[in-house]
Every structure is written in C-alpha cells, then in structure tokens.
C-alpha cells in the first residue's frame, strides 16, 4: 500500500513538474506564434515576366537576422542551433535572390552584408523558424523612399515529396516560400506607377550621392523624421559630379558582385549537407509516431531491456548527435569563411580582409576617399 502511495506521489509530482515546465516559456510569443501559423504559403508557382521591365529596379537582399533568442535556455525549446542558424541567415538570402533573378522582374539582385542606400529596393528578413518541417521568415521590403512594400511573416511546410524532389532536382524543399515572396514583391511593384518607380531609382542614386557628398546633394532630398524620403528636385542632366558618383556606385556594386560570386560557390558546397540536415530535422520531428509503431513491432527491435533494444535506442541517439555535430562543424566552417576579396579599381588592386561587414565598410571608405580626391571636396 505504502509503495503504491509513494509511486503515485512520485508520478504525480513528476507530472506536476512537467506541466509547470510546459507552461513556462510556452507563452513567450503567442502573438508571433499565431501570426506564423496563419501565414502558410502553400504551393506556389513563380510568376516569370516574359520581358524584363524597361527600368528594372536594383534589389538588395540584406543578410538575414538569424533570430537566435538571447536566452540560451530557449534554444532547446525552439530547436535553435546557433551555429547552424547563423549559417542559415547567410544562406537563405541567396535562395531568395535566386527566385528573384528567375522571376525576370528585377534588375541586378545582390546579397549585401548591410543595408545599402544605393539600392532601390531592400529586402530584410529575420528567421522566425527553421527546421526540417517548416521555415518561417519575417520579411520587410522597403524602397529607397522609405515606402514599405511588404511587411509580414511567410511560412512554408516541407512534405516528403519536397525532399524527394530536392534530391532529384536540387531545388530547395522550401522553394514555395521564396517564390511567394518574389511574387508578392512583383505584385507590390505592379501597384506603383512608372513615375513612382522611376523616382525610387532616382532617390537611390541621390541617397548614395548624398552619402558621398552631403554638401552637394543634401538639398535634392527631404527626409521626414519617420525616414520617408522625398525627391525635392533633380540635378541637371549631365551633372559631372553625378556622373562621377554613378561610376563609383558601379564600383561599389563590383565589390558586392565579387563577394556574391565567392559565396555562391560556398552555398553550392553547403547545399547537400544542409539538405541532409533539414531532412534529419524532419525525421526527428516525425520520429515519435514512427517509434510508437516500432514499439508495437517488438520482434524487430528486441525485447525491452535486451541488448538489441538498448543498442538500438543508443544508436539512434548517437546518430542524432553525430548529425548535429557534423552540421555544426560545417556551419562553423561556413561562418568562419572570411576569404579576402581582391578588387581592381582604376588599375590599382585592393586586398580586403576581415569579416564581410568589415570588408564592405573598408570598400565604402576607399570609394569615399577616391571621390574626395577626384572632386577636391
């Protein structure tokens, strides 16, 4: 009798502790959770333009915010592996870039390490969820005038068919999410007049010019405290300083294109391992159901407590850990990748080292110095 009471008390206490634990932390972001749930993109076909628009906008996709919670104890609950998430924040923008390029709706699409005022349209994103079953991204698209084109959460779920098709064609299992964002961006563009679109490009050019020479270009633009930018007037056609700035702007993009090329090859190397990792994540998530089935089939896994059954349980856990370690190592390698960038400018070769952000800032600094020298400002 005493045993039963003790066992019941132990069991009840454990369950009470459990229910308490399940409540704590589970209410942190209910609003976000609801938004994520209601934004499933479904199956999406990319809308491809037969002909590129006459004045296509230049697009910059800023490296994503990995969305890693500061509270380390939340990582487990949310399935966040920081090394892998950091790598994903650099990897996912390239997949979005590919969808945008394939849509044929845009001018050059570049992945940039930070927000760049010389680009007409900027895409910024935060990874809300990324596992083998689903991907949720919080996306904001703004043009150079500060107009918000998109600001919402996109969510996609991958089913087995998506993974099979990935293995055969190399397509991303969450391809629908990128196609949906690309389609929504094209829709948003369609709502603007030709004049409005031309203004976006002009503002971007003048924003860059203002950055290089505030005293010469500040008065062409007006900016509200909210960050909305308006074109006050345009420089004269053939303004020599604007022409010089235009050349520097091209050189600014030269750096981004060089870096993009380097990273594109890295993504190709990483894509297979990353696909396996996500597939593994999916299998883990589906494992519970599978295990129930396996437990019913005792013949195969051996009697409970037998070496075969214990070895199987241990091997499965070891497999999950090894998968994670391998992916962690790969992601670490990816995140450590800070190859120097060599760029040629007016017959001089510049060797940029350090993190991508640092290289980018150094390059901007070089261009600003060059402009100051050339223009005598």
């Amino acid at each position, binding site marked *: 009798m005493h045993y039963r009471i003790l066992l019941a008390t*132990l*069991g009840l206490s454990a369950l009470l502790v*459990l229910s308490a634990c399940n409540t704590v932390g589970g209410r942190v972001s209910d609003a976000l959770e609801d938004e994520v749930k209601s934004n499933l993109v479904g199956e999406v076909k990319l809308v491809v333009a037969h002909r590129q628009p006459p004045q296509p906008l230049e697009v910059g996709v800023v490296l994503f915010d990995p969305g890693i919670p500061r509270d380390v104890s939340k990582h487990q609950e949310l399935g966040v592996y920081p090394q892998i998430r950091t790598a994903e924040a650099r990897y996912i923008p390239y997949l979005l870039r590919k969808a945008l390029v394939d849509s044929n709706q845009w001018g050059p699409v570049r992945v940039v390490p930070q927000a760049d005022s010389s680009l007409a349209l900027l895409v910024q994103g935060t990874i809300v969820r990324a596992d083998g079953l689903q991907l949720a991204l919080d996306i904001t698209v703004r043009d150079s005038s500060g107009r918000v084109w998109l600001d919402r959460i996109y969510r996609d779920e991958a089913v087995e068919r998506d993974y099979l098709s990935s293995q055969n064609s190399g397509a991303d299992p969450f391809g629908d999410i990128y196609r949906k964002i690309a389609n929504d961006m094209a829709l948003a563009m369609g709502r603007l007049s030709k004049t409005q679109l031309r203004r976006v490009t002009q503002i971007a050019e003048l924003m860059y010019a203002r950055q290089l020479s505030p005293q010469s270009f500040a008065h062409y633009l007006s900016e509200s405290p909210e960050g909305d930018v308006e074109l006050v007037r345009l420089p004269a056609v053939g303004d020599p300083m604007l022409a010089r700035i235009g050349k520097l702007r091209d050189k600014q993009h030269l750096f981004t294109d060089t870096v993009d090329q380097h990273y594109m090859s*890295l993504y190709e190397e990483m894509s297979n391992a990353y696909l396996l990792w996500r597939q593994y994540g999916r299998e883990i998530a589906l494992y519970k159901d599978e295990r129930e089935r396996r437990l019913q089939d005792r013949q195969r896994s051996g009697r409970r407590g037998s070496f075969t059954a214990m070895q199987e349980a241990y091997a499965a856990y070891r497999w999950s850990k090894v998968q994670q370690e391998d992916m962690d190592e790969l992601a670490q390698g990816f995140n450590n990748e800070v*190859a120097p960038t060599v760029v040629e400018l007016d017959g001089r070769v510049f060797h940029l080292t350090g993190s991508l952000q640092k290289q980018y800032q150094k390059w901007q600094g070089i261009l600003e110095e060059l402009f100051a020298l050339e223009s005598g400002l």
Partner: protein
Amino acid sequence: MLKPQYIYVVIATLCSLYGAPCVAAEGLQATRNKNIDFSGAWEKDFSKSDDIQQQLRGLVRDIRRVAERRAKAGMDRGPGAGLVVGDNTKDSVPSIIGLAKMADLVTQSQVLEIEHSRAAVTIKRESAFALGCTFHDGESVAVENPLGREICGWDEHQLVFNLYLPEGLTIQHRLTLGPAGRRLNVATTVLSDQVSRPFTINRVYNRFEPGSQGIRCEHTITRGKVCTTVSY
C-alpha cells in the same frame, strides 16, 4: 518501503518518458568548483581501468545475494532465485549481460579531448558523440530530442552527465579529476528498468600532450580544417 535503487529507476523512467527536469531530482548544480579544470587531452589507461568481466561477475553476485536474502526473509521464490535464465522477466541473464555489453559499448573511447570554460564543458570522445554541458543563468541547459534527453551538472567536485534513452535505458558518466589534475576517472553507470541494479564501470584516463599542442585549428568550407601555430 521502496528501495532507493527502485526510486532512482522510477525517476529515471519518468524522466525518460516525459522529459522532466531530473537535475533537480538528482541534486546536480550548474556552478562549478573553480579549482577544477578538465581541459586537455586524455588517453585511456587500460591497466587502471575496470575489467568488464570482473564487474559483471560482481553484479551477478550482488543480484544473487539480494535475491537470497529476500528468499531467506520469505519474500521471494527461494534459494538461487534472483537470476532468471529466460528472457521475459526482470533480472534475466540476457538483460544483465545486455547491460554489461552496453556499458562496454559506451565506454570504448580511448582518447578524450575536453574543452572547459565557465559557460560550457565539451568532451569530444573518439568514436563516440561529444558530451556537452552548457550553463546559462546559473542553470545547465538540457539537450533533448525525441531520441533521448541529456542533462549535466556538478555534484560537488564531480561533473555528471545523465542520458535518458527510450527502452528504460539510462547512462550516467561521472567525471572526477585525480590529484594534481593528471588523472581523470570516468565512472559510467548503465541502468535498465529490466535489471534491479545499476552496472558501473570505471575508465581511467591520463593527461597527455597531443602532437598538435600549440596549434589552433579552424574549420572553413573552402580550406577545410586550417591550423596555425600559436605561441603561448
């Protein structure tokens, strides 16, 4: 009254089934003794490590002794009870041998490489997955997936890793640093809900200086593992 080992098995099973925070139940702490540092490379000392056969004989003896005591007290089946040759009951010979084989399987690493900082301890084990212990805000962070649950913490001067797996299997590694920090004892205990007593095996490791000492390595995608010499 329920015996302590049964309580432990019950708790372990509940933890395994529901993922309860067993650290509290086992009294493990997240704060370490500042004088203890497991960092470094360790290689197994076979001469000082336990012999698995001997440990197995010890376990069988223990179970038999307990069973005989219980039989004498009129609580069980009679002399010789406790060990069952068949495989469908608790404390069966296959279950006990299985436990010993599991202990052997999970303690095969001959070399350990330990990174130890204030916030984390990582034990890279040759031919096995790494054991990791991360501390945040004074608490250790559990690792959990549907395949198992791992939790670690300090029990005074010992670092303890508990791994709860399906099939009623629990594996505990208890690390103790020897005098002068030159020796490391890893006591591995394997528990099964099908065997009434745990099986423990001690593996002793000696600190050694690997050939790569003074070299810092970093992984990159294009260049793979890149190592550079570091002067201390």
